[in-house]
């Protein structure tokens, strides 16, 4: 008699899970071993990893290809500045409040732009981001078109001294990255997540199984909107200055993110993580090239889309049959019994 078991675990995933705890501890301890500039860079990496993971959930799993996620990054930045400076709310309270507000705003936006299909949906998200940008440019209390800086008293109030503030900014960024990646992994393992994957793989079949496609996509859009808003708060907490053009930049918050996910591998959890690391490695070595760097990035993304549409991770996974985050179920014991 053979025993067939279905498992999501692979040897690599087990190794990584065991290594996860010491890696996390090392990362938490970063303020004691990393320099100031490195800590700042690592914070930026963590925030980009979060944005990429969220965009990948939208486009790679829910089929909602947005080119307007800068709407929520900018919204987060502005909400954080407004809640702390204008409403006088404690920054640590303002963060979850802004995330919640982002989700609440995303709901009616979804109802409206879900009327657009496919690629037109993508441009619709861009229109929304433009509406947000132009609207915030009209708010004179936040500096109008030229923007404003986070007042020093709020920054000082978050932690004692510069070193503590920088450590705090890093922990927040790391915390959000862990929260976002963890939430996405758990979500994709849940019933809702399986339903979402079913929709991606075959919309007609999913509908015939009684999956409410609109509702599934709506939930994903709203949750991603809220979490992207939270990431936006932290991005502009790091920058300390906000303006409509920086907050709602399609290049910074969407183009880069799309390139990261495409290069890493769309529709996989690992793809955005690997893509972010590759993106920053390239940026640190090639950023002096300026516009040429962006042209090269665009070319790489196009070539990958045409030649290896599943990205770096897809290539590695097909080649070596590996998976870090245990998502797909596999049957073991089949060949033992034969």
């Amino acid at each position: 008699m053979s025993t067939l078991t279905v498992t999501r675990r692979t040897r690599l995933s087990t190794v990584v899970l065991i290594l996860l705890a010491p890696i996390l501890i090392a990362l938490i301890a970063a303020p004691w071993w990393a320099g100031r500039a490195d800590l700042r860079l690592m914070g930026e990496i963590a925030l980009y990893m979060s944005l990429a993971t969220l965009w990948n959930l939208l486009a790679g799993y829910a089929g909602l290809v947005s080119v307007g996620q800068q709407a929520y990054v900018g919204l987060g930045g502005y909400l954080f500045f407004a809640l702390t400076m204008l409403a006088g709310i404690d920054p640590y309270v303002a963060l979850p409040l802004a995330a919640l507000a982002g989700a609440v705003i995303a709901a009616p936006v979804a109802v409206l732009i879900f009327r657009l299909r496919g690629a037109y949906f993508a441009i619709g998200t861009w229109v929304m981001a433009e509406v947000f940008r132009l609207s915030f440019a009209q708010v004179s209390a936040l500096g109008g078109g030229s923007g404003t800086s986070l007042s020093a008293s709020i920054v000082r109030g978050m932690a004692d001294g510069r070193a503590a503030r920088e450590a705090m900014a890093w922990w927040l960024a790391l915390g959000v990255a862990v929260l976002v990646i963890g939430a996405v992994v758990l979500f994709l393992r849940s019933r809702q997540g399986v339903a979402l994957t079913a929709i991606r793989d075959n919309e007609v079949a999913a509908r015939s199984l009684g999956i409410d496609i609109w509702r599934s996509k709506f939930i994903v859009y709203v949750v991603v909107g809220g979490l992207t808003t939270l990431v936006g708060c932290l991005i502009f907490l790091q920058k300390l200055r906000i303006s409509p053009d920086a907050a709602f930049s399609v290049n910074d918050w969407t183009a880069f993110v799309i390139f990261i996910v495409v290069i890493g591998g769309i529709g996989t959890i690992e793809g955005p993580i690997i893509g972010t690391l590759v993106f920053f490695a390239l940026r640190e070595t090639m950023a002096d090239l300026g516009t040429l760097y962006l042209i090269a990035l665009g070319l790489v993304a196009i070539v990958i889309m045409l030649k290896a549409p599943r990205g770096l991770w897809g290539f590695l996974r097909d080649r070596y049959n590996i998976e870090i985050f245990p998502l797909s179920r596999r049957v073991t014991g089949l060949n033992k019994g034969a």
Partner: protein
Amino acid sequence: MDWINAVIQGVLLGGLYALFAAGLSLIFGVMRLVNIAHGDLIVLSAYLALTVTTALGLHPLLALVIVVPGMALVGYTLQRAILNRTMGDDLLPPLLVTFGLSVIIQNALLAGYSADPQKLQAGEIETASVALGSIALGVMPLIVFATAVVVIAALQWMFYRTALGRAFRATSDNQDIAQLMGLNRAHVFGLAMGLSLAVTALAGVFLGMRTSFDPAAGSARLIFGFEAVIIGGLGNLWGTLAGGVILGVAQTLGAKINPGYQILAGHLVFLAILAIRPRGLFPRIDG
């Protein structure tokens, strides 16, 4: 009187927006492709015209003789070399590839021409106007609007009265069966993109004569064109003209209230129409 003037200027502006939109509408109609780089190609046309006018000392309107066929060639080549490889059931590849193109074009223009705003010098025609009662109508906006009407009428005629249009409609209906009729899909798609960029070239030159432009000016043009298409109703060319006019009027009226509201007013009218009539004001009746 001011308000009537604003409406009339908005109508004329709508002609330019219809030109932004017509190329977008055409390729969507033929091959269900949405080209995110459309706005950047409009701006590329304007820069091409800038180079032609400065190098050869031509008037921008004469530069059209070079820019229009040049962009048509760019479109055909682009479709055959790159975009045809992305066509299929999955909408992600065309979307992301044209998005990548958009970033490439923008940065290539930045590298080649710097970020300084440029303008196409059209001479006296820029300021010439005709009086209509107490309202002055710019000659240039009138020419643009008339061109838009002619372009849309010509596209309409091409689509429904010529062999090329028949091939476009057949390929749009069923690519496989069209292929059985001896139509090479790759070539038909190339022609559609070529024609789309020929219209884009017109739009780009008029844009450059009307306002100053810079390498980042494309995304706004893509969005205006897209809004005109959706307001008018997908697949309806005359609807696209109406959509452009509605958008133009919304913007000039918005600007009349407060200069900061110009673009925002256009977006809001677009969203309102999307909320009330999701298929646009004049959708094509299918079947």
